[in-house]
């Protein structure tokens, strides 16, 4: 059974579960996504809609596939807070194009996405702010098995980003500049690599993504290419395909992750206004994820902590009346 089958099976299961639970049609159902930031945003939505606007809300757990499949099939859940548009699949995009589902934002998490990272202490010590500058100093990032070369850690086997990394390695002509790939072997290996290098305050350079606890806790900074993002054509037709099929890759930054909010049609207009206004900077989310990790807090705790800590952010999303109700409920 391939992972596709598993996913399909899970989404079917999810549809069945969701349709059973969608008896009370007045509830606003919010997809509580199964990753850290997605689940926190869902909890913030639930708190604000409940306490600020007096709606009944219900959190519905699910992943990307299960949630979007269920929204297409049954119109529930109603709000999909942090939807990575590149991962939604074509049929979902069709639903959005023909108006059955509505995408209200394209940057819910500002600055989300994958990229090449270095720890901040390295950046500050050597003033390295772009990928090109890092590539000139391979000796700061010695490869574990060949210290005459610089090492860049990439995605493990089986992740689609492995192709991106391998093609970018060629695009930046890194072999000639004295670099070698470090294969982390698995997601576990990738995490442990970053943890270990940062704990020992050694050089580390390579792939990760944000917003994540790891980026926040280890204080990693993402680097851009001096060329910026050099176009979809290069990215989707060369960088994203297998190495043999990409003859002439061009150096580029990673594209910014598109995170939309997707809602079902027919929601109350004040709800639509709220989700349209709602967006968060990646650094704020990272901050909250580190807080949750330090306190082993649930996403619900994190949502309340966010509302207490950043009133200047969320009060711009809601009406003054709702804002004062929420403030009162927090006390």
């Amino acid at each position, binding site marked *: 059974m391939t992972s596709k089958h598993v996913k399909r099976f899970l989404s079917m299961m999810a549809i069945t579960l969701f349709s059973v639970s969608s008896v009370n049609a007045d509830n606003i159902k919010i997809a509580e996504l199964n990753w850290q930031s997605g689940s926190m945003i869902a909890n913030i939505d639930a708190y604000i809609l409940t306490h600020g606007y007096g709606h009944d809300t219900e959190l519905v757990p699910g992943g990307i596939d299960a949630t979007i499949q269920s929204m297409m099939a049954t119109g529930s859940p109603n709000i999909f807070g942090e939807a990575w548009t590149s991962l939604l699949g074509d049929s979902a995009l069709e639903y959005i194009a023909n108006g059955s589902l509505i995408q209200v934002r394209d940057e819910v998490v500002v600055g989300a996405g994958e990229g090449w990272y270095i720890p901040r202490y390295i950046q500050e010590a050597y003033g390295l702010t772009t990928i090109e500058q890092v590539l000139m100093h391979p000796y700061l990032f010695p490869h574990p098995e060949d210290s005459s070369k610089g090492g860049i850690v990439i995605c493990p086997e089986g992740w689609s980003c492995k192709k991106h990394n391998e093609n970018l390695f060629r695009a930046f002509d890194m072999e000639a500049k004295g670099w070698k790939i470090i294969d982390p*072997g698995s997601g576990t290996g990738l995490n442990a690599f970053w943890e270990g290098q940062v704990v*020992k305050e050694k050089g580390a350079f390579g792939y990760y993504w944000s917003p994540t606890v790891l980026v926040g806790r280890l204080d990693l900074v993402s680097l851009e290419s001096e060329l910026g993002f050099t176009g979809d054509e290069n990215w989707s037709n060369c960088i994203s395909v297998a190495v043999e099929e990409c003859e002439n890759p061009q150096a580029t930054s990673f594209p910014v992750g598109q995170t939309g909010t997707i809602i079902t049609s027919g929601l109350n207009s004040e709800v639509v206004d709220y989700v349209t206004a709602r967006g968060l900077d990646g650094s704020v989310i990272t901050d909250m994820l580190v807080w949750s990790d330090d306190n082993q807090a649930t996403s619900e705790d994190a949502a309340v902590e966010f509302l207490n800590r950043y009133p200047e952010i969320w009060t711009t999303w809601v009406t003054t009346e709702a804002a004062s109700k929420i403030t009162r409920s927090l006390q």
Partner: protein
Amino acid sequence: MNFPSLDKGTITSFKKSIDATFREFASNWGEWFTDLLSPLQWLLINFEKLLLATPWYVFLILVGFLIWKITYSWKLVLGFLISFVSIGLVGMWDDTMRTLAIVIVSTLVCIVIGIPTGILMAKNNTAQRIILPILDIMQTIPSFVYLIPVVMLFGLGKVPGLIAIVVFAIPPVIRFTNLGLRQVDFNLVETAQAMGLKSKYILAFIEIPLARNVILGGVNQTVMMALAMVVIASMIGVRGLGSQVMNSIGNGYLGLGVISGLSIVALAIIIDRTIQAHNKRHDKWRNYK
């Protein structure tokens, strides 16, 4: 009724203090440990380079001859040639060499540490009482638990992979050495003692030769367990057949999984049969005397 567990805050701070202690340890000692094991890293890298640089026909002739000298079994040599030629034909040669390199070095490390430890256990009951539970832990603790700390200490690559393999694969060679020495007929030892032989000579000329087949059985088990661990080791960046298995799992490539899995099986069977045939021959020779 819920079990009256400690409150959440206490458990959390307990877990976090373990984390913090280990991070502190890794940051103070990580470099030191890495330097300490750098000779092993050198050995691993260069042995792999040597195997990869050896032309395939030279490898087939040399190892085929070696198996023949050990076993005198044409069947086994033929089986070896057929399976390795098939491995080469399906494009797994280089990965098989990488796996062979790390398995051989791991086994050597296991033997060098394991046999003296086994001797110590056989000679000293207190040592046996202390070491046996440690071996139990090493064999049963899920390897994922120590994979992350090992990588935090040593970084990604061959050395942490080797450590993960050795932790899992060393118990049989220790246990079998202990068992083999304890099974040696005490009358023989006593006779030697009565004739004034020093205990180190008794060990070298009477006990170890008599326990030899049992010890080799332990070595055989160790090799098998090391091979079983190559897939886990590939999770922390050890390239070889294990990373092909991971690749096939990650992408859902059934064919690649079967090919790389069977290559591991082929390696295992050849090594196992070689050691067993050697033991059998040795037994026969002893019975003739």
